[in-house]
């Protein structure tokens, strides 16, 4: 940490700059935290109903499921890949769970089916990208159509429902007072991915691959295997999100979670992860998830239609990337 940086360093290395205090004070995460607090305060002003603990608890449903996927997606994007098929994995996993219900499966089996289908879908993506070396953006656009397409073949214009009562615990249950089961899952998953990305050699390998896959390979990192595992994890998280969402809605339609892939990617990019790979942190993604949840909830309280919120999300996505670039350009102009 305290190795002095040479004056003529070609570029800032992620963990070899100033002390942690100076770094954290000017970091992306601090900015996000300030934004989150600001939005929180604005919401408090805008609506008297905002601070109600039950309202706030309900608001978390806006982001917990998407955020679970976003954590895995963040690691994938840090490694220089992307998975656009996550929403379709939810659809397929949910359809499989609905199918299992018709066969009389109980809650434990349903959860296993959901997670299992997620893993299988992730393995399929991972196989195509890591084994065959195909570009992940095209592969996952293909599987985006394929997975949801299978859900449509199975379901058509029908819907599955009749989930057992105990299954509702995941999406509708409360652990304690206003703390939902999903919030606990969200926290656990965030912790697990945070440790995996920031405290293990696997996480270091992910950064190495994102910065320079060739150098990573020649450093002895098994690049295809790491990428495969990342796709597996993303599939697993999509499966978990499918369990939560299906449990919350209590029914499955093939159009379930349509368009979520864009919101998940937006969350990750807003969280400060470089879309080109190589940098980004998990706490940033957590904050971005909370910000998006707060914004959606705040707009909802003000009766702003969902599609108008999406304009805001789109602008936010472009602005958070454009502003630092423009800011840096302004600074370099002054020099």
């Amino acid at each position, binding site marked *: 940490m305290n190795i002095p940086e040479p004056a003529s360093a070609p570029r800032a290395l992620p963990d070899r700059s100033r002390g942690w205090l100076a770094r954290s004070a000017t970091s992306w995460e601090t900015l996000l935290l300030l934004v989150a607090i600001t939005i929180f305060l604005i919401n408090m002003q805008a609506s008297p109903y905002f601070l109600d603990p039950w309202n706030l608890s309900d608001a978390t449903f806006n982001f917990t499921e998407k955020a679970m996927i976003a954590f895995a997606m963040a690691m994938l994007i840090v490694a220089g890949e*992307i998975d656009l098929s996550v929403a379709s994995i939810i659809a397929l996993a949910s359809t499989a769970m609905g199918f299992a219900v018709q066969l009389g499966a109980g809650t434990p089996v349903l959860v296993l089916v959901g997670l299992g289908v997620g893993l299988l879908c992730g393995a399929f993506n991972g196989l*195509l990208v890591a084994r*065959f*070396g*195909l*570009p992940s*953006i*095209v*592969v996952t*656009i*293909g*599987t*985006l*159509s*394929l*997975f*949801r*397409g*299978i859900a*449509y*073949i199975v*379901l*058509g*214009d029908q819907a599955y429902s009749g989930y057992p009562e105990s299954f509702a615990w995941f999406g509708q249950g409360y652990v304690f007072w206003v703390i939902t089961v999903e919030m606990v899952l969200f926290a656990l998953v965030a912790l697990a991915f945070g440790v995996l990305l920031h405290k293990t050699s696997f996480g270091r390998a992910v950064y190495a691959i994102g910065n320079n*896959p*060739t150098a990573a*390979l020649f450093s002895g990192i*098994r*690049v*295809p295997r790491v990428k495969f595992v990342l796709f597996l994890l993303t599939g697993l998280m999509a499966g978990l999100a499918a369990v939560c969402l299906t449990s919350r809605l209590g029914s499955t339609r*093939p159009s379930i979670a349509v368009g979520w892939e*864009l919101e998940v*990617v*937006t969350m990750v*990019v807003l969280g400060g992860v470089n*879309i*080109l790979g190589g940098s980004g942190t998990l706490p940033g993604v957590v904050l971005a998830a909370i910000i998006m949840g707060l914004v959606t909830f705040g707009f909802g309280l003000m009766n702003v*239609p969902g*599609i*108008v919120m*999406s*304009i805001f*999300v*789109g*602008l936010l*996505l*472009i602005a958070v*990337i*454009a502003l630092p*670039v*423009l800011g840096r350009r302004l600074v370099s102009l002054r020099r």
Partner: protein
Amino acid sequence: MSGLLSRRDALLALALALLIALVAWRFPAFARPTSLGGVFTDSSILIILALGQMMVILTRCIDLSMASNLALVGMIVAMTNAALPALPVPLLVVLAIAIGATLGAVNGLLVWKVGIPPIVVTLGTLTIFRGLIFVISDGQWINAHEMSDGFKALPRLTVARVPLLAWSAIVAFAAVAVFVSRTGTGRALYAVGGNPDAAVYAGIDAGRTRCIAFVIAGALAGFAGYLWVARYAVAYVDIAGGFELDVIAACVIGGISIAGGIGTVVGALLGALFLGVIKNALPVVDVSPFWQLAISGAAIIIAVLFNARAERRPGRIILKRAEQGVTIAVPRSVQGKSVQGESA
């Protein structure tokens, strides 16, 4: 123009012919000229969009906002027509192209001047354009009776027994073919995508070239926006929702490499027709339309697997293989070309 029909395009044409033959074997009516003409007309909008997307992908970019651009422009021209029925339709078409190009320029300038990755820019504009439709229309539909007759009739007018909708795809195809093969800017698209560094040393402004590709793609999407609204005689927030993926699918099936620099206009045309034939053949062979999504997904994956094999040429092969953990000796014949891979 003989180089235009590469070996891959010939294979794809063969696959397309086989597909049509397969359907025609059971249902001969499908292969009748009028029926196939109908399939072409039905695929026209997809062809126009795929041509635009092709130019963007050639420069190593991607435009996810094309369908939203189409829908926004479609809504604007439909509302203009409903409010001012006296306005001549050709003027509306020009308006559609101009607005589409402007929206494309927003993408292009953000990529060129601000340096945001194209996928992020167009992901953002995808949602913004779509949201703007709601804002300007207040969620209302523009229905057939609110549009003037001339507005709705133009795509259906026939010239030499071919409707103008199909003609516009043919003209777009010819124009783009000439543009990418016979103009400096068109060739620059390939250069920028094939090797951006080399293109810069060859005196090509890579950012400007990309911006031009986005503007042209936007203009084509705007034009398609008019065609869509006039053809289906309705405009609402969700028209062409998810169509951006069909467009990319058409390009991928057409052999246009997402890594840039590789692709032909014939490929884009055949890729779009391939999807069009599948879409039109499913009801004929009595398969539920719900199969369409899965089939096009499978087609994309197969096409990508196929493309990857075709793209593994000397000079490109070195980095690819090295990434996969295969230590290979660089053959003497390609050593000179390996410089590109090592500097990347």
